């Protein structure tokens, strides 16, 4: 640390505060799932969605993409379903 760094010290973001904020957000979510990884159900959700859509449209296992975005106040579940361009008929 040089003598002149005193003048800049205040403006720098404190990484310790960032660490604390990140932990608080993350742990609030991890605790709410009572010790189990909360994203555990996402693969099952994906399977169920695929099964439901398949009743009407033929799609593959990988055509559904489920993502979770965890935020401080709320979390969002993003589900992307890739439908085939032209629905193929079963006989065709």
């Amino acid at each position: 640390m040089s003598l002149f760094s005193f003048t800049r010290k205040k403006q720098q973001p404190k990484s310790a505060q960032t660490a604390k904020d990140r932990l608080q957000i993350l742990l609030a979510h991890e605790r709410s799932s009572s010790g189990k990884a909360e994203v555990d159900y996402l693969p099952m959700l994906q399977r169920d969605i695929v099964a439901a859509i398949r009743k009407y449209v033929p799609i593959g296992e990988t055509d559904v993409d489920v993502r979770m975005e965890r935020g401080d106040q709320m979390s969002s579940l993003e589900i992307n379903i890739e439908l085939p361009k032209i629905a193929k008929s079963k006989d065709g």
Partner: protein
Amino acid sequence: MTTEPKSNPPLGRVIVITSGKGGVGKTTSSAAISAGLAKQGFKTVVIDFDVGLRNLDMTMGCERRVVFDFINVIQGDAKLKQALIKDKRLDTLFILPTSQTRDKDALTKDGVEKVLTELRSEFDYIICDSPAGIEHGAQMAMHFADEAVVVTNPEVSSVRDSDRVLGLLSSQTKRAETEGSDPIKAQVLITRYDETRVENGEMMTIEDVLEILAVPLLGVVPESKAILKASNVGTPVVLDGPSAAAQAYEDAVLRLTGKQVEMRIQGERRAGLFKRLFGRAS
């Protein structure tokens, strides 16, 4: 040194030293806390639960005296008395080393319980040095505990893992599963604390860590050169001459035994103003 056994019958208290994350100071803390308790006159045994990666023996300086181990006792190949190694410095301190060659699956719940029950009838404190992680070995180390010391560095992954471990302590242990029994008394021991970095805003403060983990504080061990020096020579840091780290462990030990000790945070002796300004050049 006062080494006369204090209580009769023995207290028989099982304390797990755990953390989740590796490398935060579990074995160092297990060695220091058990030696500190023995120094206070409590008959103490420290058990290595890290099957396959034996290290407590080196930290305690008894690696050349291991004949039988914890797994031999569990499997009935040796008597507990044969496997316990008596410390050469304190006659109230014993070490139960683990196996270097076996697999952690050798730790059966019944076997661990049997050994701990036998130890409870003879020792005041039974310190269980947990392996890192939250797998079988770590679960066995915490399962029968009355008390837990969660070793945490003021760093994001360590705090996160400590939180996870606290969750397991309150849900996956014997005390948690037994209706009507008190929960495990969990407390956090902050290690590798660097006051200068905290002042510069580069490291989370004690208050930050406690606010997140929401458990009582057992002590704060400063980052200290004395720790490596003590482990180099196989001496628990509290027996290796005065240092800030040794003082912090001694205080933590007193708190474990129920004494009220003011929380004082000493770093390595801080460099003077002159050295802080011009220290880089030297």
